[in-house]
């Protein structure tokens, strides 16, 4: 029964390659087909989530029935089950938005790349093999390059070019890291690596791990390698921007956490954690400072996203289970909030012809539901109580105090202060400035936005059930011994 979980990978792949055939019969059916495939994917992901969380056991799919490390396995534990659902749901909502937001031809190419982006992120989260991780990372990256350039303007191509150059450097670093680890351990399977990690030469392992982190840092938008992100976020089609922020980044961060923790038995491993903490801190500072002086709202949200991702990386690198759980909680909350905000901003840019802050003046009178959604998202991301991000920020602060990183508290509070400055400026422009005629808002999109707003408020008021799920997801990454035990390694388990 659990073998059906491989449909999570198979369905988007078949869906993507069915589109050229579909286009020959009917051109108008492509976008509804995209919505249908993402809806089915959400159904499968919900089934997998239910299966994993009720039985408490991870689903492990062995490709071709060969046991790892000979064969390749998919590992869908608590973390992967949760985030596969987030990915599928975000893709579904963005597919609905795409019906309206994407008007430039060729729509069939758009739909194919959209499905491949979803496939890549799903694969990165559920794979159990570092080379497979590389392949899925490249599927994500290449479809992301193409989607960034999709609008075919000069600016879109410029953004895509920056992304390609940085992504190319990153993937080369990643492969060198894979080569170092394979050269010293003779295996690519994550569980097998974790089992043999104490045998490896610490210098080689640390160098390999640092290279893997730098390779993943491009997609995860960590400091020296995130120059592509604001440009790509600004120029990509609106639904794609939301997908980048909601799950492509999260998949890379998860992969980062996983490769770090499977090598936790290596001597001097703490230095890698410190490296990631420094990267994360610089990412937060630079993201917040740059967000402050943006006049394009989409670009401002992009920098805000970078800052949040930095906080998540700091949480991942605290080295404690509480830190990981808090970080996973922040990933989850941030995915919801940023999906909502990029959806709303994209919708405004579509209706009013641009995302400059001047277009947002009087939005409360022109498009009240959209303005309300942006306000809730902004208030939530600042970290006001009774909204979801408040709880993950609190958990991050508690975890940092427990891990004796007192200055992280100052970092989080300072970041929230800067966020408050620029988000309140936006809220002020929306509600207290300018006049305007009321624009008719699309009912479907209003429904999607209100759904996400409701989710934000529900998590804000009842955080406990969500926090319990996040703790399970966090321990899925942290508890490497259990991870090794779950994977049926050849010659180890009967």
């Amino acid at each position, binding site marked *: 029964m659990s073998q059906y979980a491989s449909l999570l990978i198979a369905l988007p792949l078949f869906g993507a390659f069915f589109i050229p055939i579909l286009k020959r019969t009917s051109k108008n059916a492509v976008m509804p087909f995209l919505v249908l495939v993402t809806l089915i994917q959400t159904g499968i992901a919900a089934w997998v989530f239910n299966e994993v969380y009720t039985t408490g056991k991870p689903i492990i799919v062995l490709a071709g029935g060969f046991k790892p490390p000979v064969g390749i396995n998919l590992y869908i534990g608590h973390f992967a089950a949760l985030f596969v659902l987030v990915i599928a749901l975000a893709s579904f909502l963005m597919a609905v938005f795409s019906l309206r937001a994407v008007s430039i031809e060729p729509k069939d190419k758009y739909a194919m790349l959209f499905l491949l982006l979803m496939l890549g992120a799903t694969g990165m989260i559920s794979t159990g093999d570092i*080379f497979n991780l*590389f*392949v899925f990372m*490249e599927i994500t*990256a*290449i479809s992301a*390059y*193409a989607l960034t*350039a999709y609008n*075919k*303007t*000069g*600016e879109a*191509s*410029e*953004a*895509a*070019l920056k992304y*390609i*150059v940085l*992504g*190319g*450097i990153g*993937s*080369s670093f990643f*492969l*060198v890291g*894979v*080569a170092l680890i*394979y*050269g010293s351990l003779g295996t*690519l399977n994550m569980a097998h690596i974790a089992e043999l990690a104490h045998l490896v030469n610490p210098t080689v392992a640390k160098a390999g791990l640092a290279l893997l982190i730098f390779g993943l840092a491009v997609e995860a938008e960590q400091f020296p390698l995130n120059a592509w992100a*604001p*440009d790509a976020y*600004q*120029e990509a089609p609106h639904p794609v921007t939301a997908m980048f922020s909601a799950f492509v980044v999260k998949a890379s961060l998860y992969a980062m956490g996983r490769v770090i923790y499977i090598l936790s038995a290596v001597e001097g491993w703490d230095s890698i954690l410190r490296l990631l903490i420094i990267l994360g801190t610089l990412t937060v500072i630079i993201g917040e400072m740059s967000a402050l*002086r*943006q*006049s*394009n709202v989409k*670009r401002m949200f992009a920098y805000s996203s970078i800052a949040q991702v930095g906080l998540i990386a700091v949480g991942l690198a605290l080295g404690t289970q509480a830190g990981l759980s808090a970080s996973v909680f922040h990933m989850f909350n941030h995915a919801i909030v940023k999906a909502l905000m990029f959806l709303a901003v994209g919708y405004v840019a579509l209706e009013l012809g641009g995302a400059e802050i001047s277009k947002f003046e009087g939005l409360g009178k022109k498009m009240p539901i959209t303005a309300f959604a942006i306000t809730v998202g902004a208030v939530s991301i600042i970290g006001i109580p009774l909204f979801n991000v408040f709880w993950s920020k609190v958990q991050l602060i508690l975890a940092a105090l427990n891990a004796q990183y007192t200055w992280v508290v100052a970092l989080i509070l300072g970041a929230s202060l800067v966020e408050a400055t620029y988000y309140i400026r936006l809220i002020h422009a929306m509600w207290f400035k300018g006049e305007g005629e009321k624009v008719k808002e699309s009912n479907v999109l209003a429904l999607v936005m209100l759904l996400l707003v409701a989710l934000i408020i529900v998590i804000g008021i009842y955080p406990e059930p969500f926090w319990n799920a996040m703790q399970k997801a966090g321990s899925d990454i942290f508890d490497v011994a259990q991870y090794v035990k779950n994977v049926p390694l050849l010659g180890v388990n009967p």
Partner: protein
Amino acid sequence: MNPYYFASIALILIGLYAVLTKRNVLKILVGLSIMETGVNLLLISVGYVSGRSAPILSEGITPDRAVDPIPQALVLTAIVIGVATTAMALSVVINLYERYKTLNVEEIRRLRG
């Protein structure tokens, strides 16, 4: 130590140098390709054992007389991915040249701030 390691690391560094210092977009992409070649050579040399033959089972060649086949399979995959990235990049550059009429990265900067 295997002498191929030095050659491959030299190729990676030459490629990185080209990516970081060249002004022409096409030269940057050539630099990326050189980097990828270096990485592929490194992967191959990880599995190379002097004096053994290719990992194809035939007369007189047993698994202990062949080199490690896994890096070769990985390199085939990596080459295909590299080709896809290069093709993607070149098509973006064509579009970029049509809009900006230049290939100089110093002039391709409308997105700032």
